[in-house]
């Protein structure tokens, strides 16, 4: 369980996040939405512990996140960056193997059977045929799958995703989110994702947190949060909202002004 307690963040006296209070409970999928530049990614990095808030604190199971040893934290929490994995000279298998770093001692060995976990993750993401290709030989979508496989091999109980679908085609977007959701259900993970696309956010997440002008403007189920009033207020756009034919969650239909 992650708690943000009066989290403030400023860069050179410019306040970006102004006192956010929110609790992310175990075992649910949370989506963080809001306009560009509001500080969603920053907030995510505060939650992951790599950035320290200017004021307030982030607690992981009641303990300040800054008190956790880095490796211990990495065994609990895994992060998927927006930029994905760079096209390196490492092979797919070598990259996924890196996920076991938090479990290895200085000699490089670990207690669990790291190799099997790595292979399982590779198979789960359908990368078996690519396992010995180098990253630079893969397409963007394939690298994203490798990034996910790496996440799996890290065996986290909490996953943070920073706009994971931004650079993907719709097919891959759905594939990624399907995989994440399935995985979350199987292992009862806590997922917190910064989402750009409101429709996807609505389709996949149990709860949404809306950040606006540095504060938590709204939170709750997609049905509760995605109202035309909120969208108008936060995004300045008039939209039509319809219920999804299969699942009933709100979906946004865009409305041009002219």
């Amino acid at each position, binding site marked *: 369980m992650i708690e943000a307690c009066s989290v403030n963040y400023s860069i050179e006296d410019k306040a970006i996040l102004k006192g956010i209070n929110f609790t992310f409970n175990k075992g649910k999928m949370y989506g963080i939405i809001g306009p560009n530049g509001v500080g969603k990614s920053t907030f995510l990095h505060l939650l992951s512990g*790599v950035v320290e808030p200017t004021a307030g604190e982030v607690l992981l199971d009641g303990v300040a996140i800054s008190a956790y040893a*880095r490796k211990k*934290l*990495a065994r609990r929490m895994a992060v998927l960056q927006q930029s994905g994995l760079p096209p390196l000279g490492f092979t797919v298998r*070598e990259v996924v193997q890196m996920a076991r770093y938090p479990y290895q001692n200085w000699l490089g060995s670990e207690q669990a059977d790291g190799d099997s976990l790595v292979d399982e993750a590779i198979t789960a993401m359908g990368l078996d045929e690519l396992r010995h290709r*180098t990253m630079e030989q893969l397409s963007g979508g394939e690298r994203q799958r490798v990034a996910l496989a790496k996440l799996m091999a890290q065996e986290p109980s909490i996953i943070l995703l920073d706009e994971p679908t931004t650079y993907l085609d719709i097919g891959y977007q759905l594939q990624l989110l399907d995989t994440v959701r399935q995985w979350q259900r199987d292992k009862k993970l806590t997922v917190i994702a910064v989402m750009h696309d409101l429709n996807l956010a609505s389709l996949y997440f149990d709860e949404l947190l809306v950040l606006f002008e540095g504060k938590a403007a709204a939170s709750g189920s997609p049905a509760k949060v995605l109202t035309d009033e909120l969208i108008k207020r936060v995004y300045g756009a008039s939209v039509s909202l319809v219920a999804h034919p299969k699942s009933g969650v709100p979906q946004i239909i865009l409305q041009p002004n002219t």
Partner: protein
Amino acid sequence: MMRHKLAGYGGAALLLLAVSIIISLSIGSAGISILDVWGILVHQLPWLSYDGTAWEANQIAVVTQVRLSRVLLAVLVGASLALAGAGFQGVLRNPLADPYTLGVASGSSAGAAFIILFGYQIILGTWTIPLVAFVTGAVTLFGVLWLSRSKGGGMSVETLILSGVIMQAFLGAFVSFMVAMSDGVVNQILFWLMGSLATRSWDNVYMLVPFLALGIPLLLFYAKALNLFALGERHAAHMGVSVERTKLIVLIASTLLTAAAVSVSGVIGFVGLVVPHLVRLICGPDYRLIIPLSAIGGGLFVLWADTLARMALSPREIPLGVVTALIGAPFFAYLLRRHKIRNR
């Protein structure tokens, strides 16, 4: 799998190094025959006793005092520089980084130039220049670190590199000024700068050994972290790497290795840049391979360069830094052509 690769490449590299050392020991300006050279060397081994009076004192002195120490020194200097280069490239994530990027060489040069210009070369005996050069080189790093510290206490790679550029520019100007002021018949400062292993002693060899003995295991320890660095600093942090601490330790260790090498041999370029790249081209981006193999590769490179430096125009010496650049640059260009240099 990695273990196999290390054993394979490592074994081949060590074999090459051993052969090179044998060849280099066998040739020299003194014109001693190979049989005599090896007779003298073998005779040094305490458990092999046979009549050693077959050789003149000069020949023995040349082989055991001059040539042996020089060959070993070349290997150690090369290993130190290449190792430091690998460390810098890993932390700065810049394929053009070399041990001199953060201004260590210009710091050492400034110290050495000052000593030479004012004739203080022997206030601490023959240790004066190496000691001063080492201290000024190491201090330069701390200057760069101080310049680069941000409010949060971390140091961004870009700021580090820029600070290094500033230091180099400033100290370099200082050194140039001292070179201009130097009015001896031979511009001693200039020739120190160009690098040389002539007239070095066993003391210099002993000086480098602890740095390598500590440096290799230390950098190997951080090799996995350096692999993760390739994914990006933030990413590495998410994987459990203590990013700032790793950067600091690797940078300091690499700088001390560089300062030690430069203080002994002057500024020898290209080793720290070319050798890690070469290793990467052959063996891939894994630092667990790059680090040990760079050390061996660096030793090989400088050994051959120094052998050329002392033999090509014998008995004249060619400055070692000139030879490493003349070999290194075209060779690197050739490699660039044949293989695509992979990112990081």
